[in-house]
């Protein structure tokens, strides 16, 4: 019975939504990159850079909306770097991604340390406040659970239909999907594969950075070292779990966040019997399990990881 209580509390559902948001942004970002044929393992570092830059912007007196844009811009810049290596030059997507993760996170930490050499915990900022949806937020239970969140939270969920529309209902989205399946057919239509892929990686990276920024300027109000803590890698697993579909990605992120929120509450109830480390392990274990579940029928974008060079098969 006491487990059921967890699901009956609005705070559990609100927490689920909050935990899901950075995952939704970043998973959509990774999905966009992979749909164009590029595995972006820079995700962990780009999220760190987004978290840092969003926080820094506000700390320096910028407002919250432009902070999101600034984080996106920083993410896009790392995306451009990634694409320069993996798309223009066709270099190893694995090594480039790991290199960019290392570069982006160490640069972020360096900058924080430069600006605040003394403090061990960076100062707090005024982060996004909740914006109750008029009317809906007054509904019992549902209102508190789903309609009393920060604007960036609603933005995360609006991103899902937006990305779906772009991918499935615009000419550019079609080009992105084909870039990840058979880039030769883009070339045959006179469409520049390099441009399509580069832009997709930049946009995807921008989304990852916004996912990171969500942590510092919406979920919390400060930047901590190691705050991304593997969320990026979890998103890479979620993309596979979602079979590269935005709708399923949302579902995966919510499922995941729900289990995470549940885990925290279980920890409070069961903490005396089971060491907390095992609860903290759950997200990582689940990510591996999720990949195993879909492995047999995973339909990878055909051109994923395959560099493309002009005129290679014509």
């Amino acid at each position: 019975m006491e487990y059921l209580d967890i699901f009956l509390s609005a705070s559990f559902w609100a927490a689920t939504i909050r935990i899901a948001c950075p995952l939704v942004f970043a998973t959509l970002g990774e999905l966009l990159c992979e749909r164009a044929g590029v595995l972006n393992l820079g995700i962990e570092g780009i999220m760190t850079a987004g978290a840092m830059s969003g926080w820094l912007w506000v700390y320096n007196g910028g407002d919250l909306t432009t902070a999101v844009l600034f984080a996106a811009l920083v993410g896009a810049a790392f995306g451009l770097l990634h694409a320069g290596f993996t798309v223009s030059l066709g270099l190893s997507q694995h090594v480039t991604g790991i290199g960019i993760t290392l570069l982006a996170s160490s640069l972020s930490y360096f900058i924080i340390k430069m600006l605040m050499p003394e403090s061990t915990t960076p100062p707090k900022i005024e982060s996004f406040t909740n914006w109750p949806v008029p009317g809906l937020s007054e509904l019992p239970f549902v209102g508190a659970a789903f309609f009393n969140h920060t604007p960036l939270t609603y933005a995360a969920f609006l991103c899902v239909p937006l990305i779906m529309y772009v991918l499935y209902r615009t000419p550019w989205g079609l080009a992105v999907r084909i870039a990840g399946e058979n880039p030769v057919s883009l070339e045959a239509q006179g469409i520049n594969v390099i441009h399509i892929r580069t832009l997709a990686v930049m946009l995807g990276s921008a989304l990852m950075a916004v996912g990171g920024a969500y942590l510092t300027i919406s979920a919390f109000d400060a930047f901590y070292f190691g705050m991304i803590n593997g969320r990026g890698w979890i998103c890479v697993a979620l993309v596979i779990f979602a079979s590269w579909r935005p709708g399923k990605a949302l579902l995966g992120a919510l499922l995941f966040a729900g289990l995470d929120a549940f885990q925290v509450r279980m920890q409070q109830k069961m903490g005396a019997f089971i060491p907390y480390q095992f609860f903290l392990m759950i997200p990582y274990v689940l990510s591996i399990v999720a990949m195993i579940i879909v492995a047999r029928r995973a339909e990878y974008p055909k051109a994923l990881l395959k560099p493309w060079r002009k005129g290679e098969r014509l």
Partner: protein
Amino acid sequence: MNEQVVLEISQVSKRFGKLSANENISLTLQQGEIIALLGENGAGKTTLMNILFGHYRADQGSIRVFGQSLSNHSPEDALQAGIGMVHQHFTLAENLTVLDNIMLGTEPLWSPISHRRKARKLLHDIASDAGLEVALDSKVRELTVGQRQRVEILKALYRNVRILILDEPTAVLTPQEVDDLFTLLRRMVEGGLSIIIISHKLQEVLSISDRVVVLRHGRVVGEASTDNVDRDQLAEMIVGRQIERPTAIPRVAGKNLLSLQRVSVHGSRSSRPLLDDVSLNVPASQITGIAGVSGNGQSVLADVLSGMRRIDSGEWLIDGHAVSTPTPKQLTTLGFARIPEDRHTHGVVGEMNLWENLMLDEIGNPPRWRAGLTLNRDAARTTAEGLVKQFDIRCSSTEQPAALLSGGNMQKLILARNLARKPRLILANQPTRGLDEGAIAAVHALLIEARDRGAGILLITEDLDELLRLADNVVVMHAGTLSEPLPANNLSQRELGLRMAGSH
């Protein structure tokens, strides 16, 4: 017939380093005409088309389309000018729908909306005018090769193409599908389209084209109205000198080396099994041919026979004894050689040297390995030098990466590696695909020689001429099933075609 010139290529030349790929090529195409562009691999057809489409820049010469000059143009300009191409390897994304594939690139890239409903309606009209019905919402991977080709043609028509270029359009079709295609092409020509067909299949070319243009070593060596030439004249123009493909003299079949009995392989998702209760014998001293339209299970069968894929039911018999599915290594030990369909992905490790590639399936065996453990470089190089000479592999040295070999020489390398061991059985999957006449004759001679030595050969090929010339027996593959073996000497291409299409 309308005498308007729609395409005029004059004096086009293109060099790559020392190689002259195109030299002073001139060609005109008139409205409503079908031209056949003939030539061997490497004769310059592909280069010419790449220049026409703006993938390459010509060193000199000019191109005029509908009277307008086209120079320093991009692929987009070529499309704008009304030129469309159906490539031999279709440029379709398999996991996307037909509609998606057709609409790619037809709308401004940055348009926020895609007019899919309008496109659907327009496509419907075009398709019914041309007699080209395709289900717009099915995924391309669900379509047969013939249907995919129709998608490519529909794609071109949707772009208002007025000059259509077809690269080897019949390579993957059954004779009946070829007839359908030609009917379609004739109907489209009557509607005002002009067509260039690039091909090396003479008989078909003669039946569809109005005019033939022959390229050799980058030059136009012959041009004639189709009514005025015959097959032999054309063949000589194409090759220059007469190259005889060797013919196999029938032999008496030996013992069964390998049998598959009631073997099935299930796909991961499709409801239909990839191999459906297949039985097959490969006797010694015989060439057993497998005919079939590509995509009917030949690749799966080849994967099974080369130890790359497990079977779900049925059994393997080797020398009459039931065995469990052998690994590739075990097959090598048994004396079973495998020539893979795709040289680049399955045949060689492109970045390794020739001598390393020549020992790829001999890992651990003396003399190239001491005590089965450490590499003996000198022995490996010496053996490689010998094979390079014996099989006439043209290369700068055995140290060069295999990726730099030409298609024919790469195939010779794979044959050298496989035949040096004097195998008892050879699985040859599309052994001459993409090779020029000289190389084809060499490969055929090697296969016949191996058979005459007593080896059993299983030949999977889409080239019916090759099949009927070499095979002692033919088995037809259709929808994952195999027919009974038929003696090759009283089979016609026509009959084979009917069987390949699934009607007996």
